[in-house]
């Protein structure tokens, strides 16, 4: 964990963005020639130079977790004296996708809603101060927007369906900062805590702490989760065809 803190860590969602999928394909292509579900690589700060061989996972590249940690420590040495603090808030692009990702990780989703781009930028800056603190790093995901939430299937990323019908997520988001429990499939958000847009960082810390305490995701096995999804007819329609699907074909 400590080794990763020196890096800008990025987890693109594999089949949700054409440009990102192109990047992932350029980094790693398996024998099938198709984009794999997972891609792993360590890159220099230019975002282009590979510092290690790429693969589907770290386990394809490194002989164990200790070897990866050692590699990360060694590769960071030349950067050590020049590195600056990470300050940008790590956002996820779309509401439905952000709920899904938060659900996958079992963490709250924090939503920032403002009336103007200027106000939103100010909120993001305050939230970012907190997001990279030791106590909060990685403990929630973030989504920010002005205006209204887009309808599922209209915003250029994946969405959930029940049967063939896109799921319309019923959530009336207030202005300000709202921490949500995304629900087991990312479809039933419930408010855990809320703070006004102009809340200071200290109060925000307390509010997010309350959200963490109130958040208690249901623990379930992969089999149980899949069974319940099938029972309810819930599927995820990724923006791009999933070429590494369970049966090797697109869900579309």
């Amino acid at each position, binding site marked *: *964990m400590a080794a*990763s803190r020196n890096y*800008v*860590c*990025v*987890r*693109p*969602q*594999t089949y949700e963005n054409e440009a*990102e999928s192109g990047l992932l394909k350029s980094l790693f292509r*398996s*024998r099938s020639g198709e984009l*794999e579900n*997972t*891609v*792993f690589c*360590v*890159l220099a*700060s230019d*975002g282009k130079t590979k510092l290690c061989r790429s693969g*589907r*996972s*770290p*386990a*394809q*590249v490194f002989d*164990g977790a*200790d070897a990866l*940690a050692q590699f990360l420590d060694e590769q*960071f040495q030349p*950067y050590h004296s*020049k*590195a600056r*603090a990470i*300050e*940008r808030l*790590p*956002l996820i692009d779309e509401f439905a996708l952000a709920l899904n990702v938060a*659900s*996958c*990780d*079992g963490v709250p989703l924090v939503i920032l809603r403002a009336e103007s781009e200027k106000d939103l930028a100010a909120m993001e800056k305050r939230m970012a101060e907190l997001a990279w603190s030791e106590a909060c790093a*990685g403990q929630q995901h973030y989504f920010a927007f002005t205006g209204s939430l887009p309808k599922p299937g209209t915003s250029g990323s994946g969405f*959930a369906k029940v049967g063939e019908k896109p799921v319309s997520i019923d959530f009336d988001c207030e202005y300000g900062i709202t921490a949500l429990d*995304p*629900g*087991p*499939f*990312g479809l039933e958000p419930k408010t855990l805590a809320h703070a006004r847009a102009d809340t200071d960082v200290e109060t925000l810390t307390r509010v997010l702490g309350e959200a*963490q305490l109130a*958040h208690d*995701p249901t623990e379930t096995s*992969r089999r149980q989760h*899949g069974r319940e*999804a*099938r029972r309810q007819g*819930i*599927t*995820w329609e990724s923006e791009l065809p*999933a070429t590494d699907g369970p049966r090797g074909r697109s869900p579309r």
Partner: protein
Amino acid sequence: MSQPKTTSPAHSILAWGFVAALFALAGPASGSVIQRSAEKPSVPSKEVEAVPGSQAERIAWFGRWEDARAEAARTRRPILLMSAAPQCSGAPGMW
């Protein structure tokens, strides 16, 4: 995919440390030049027992490549990239 038998993949990622979680996302080792260890990464029992909602250490992931690329350039830090699809056999809510 290597997973503890008693917890879901998503909650393994909650409970395991970063490195173990990344290794838990391991796919088949075909084409691997470096031999993988036959054993799963060891997991301290107190981490396994960490429950969702607790403050287990987690990676703070950027969700957008362009944000990460820009921040890496600005901060002069290298990039750790691990992509994943937020669906399990077509169902949302689990990697």
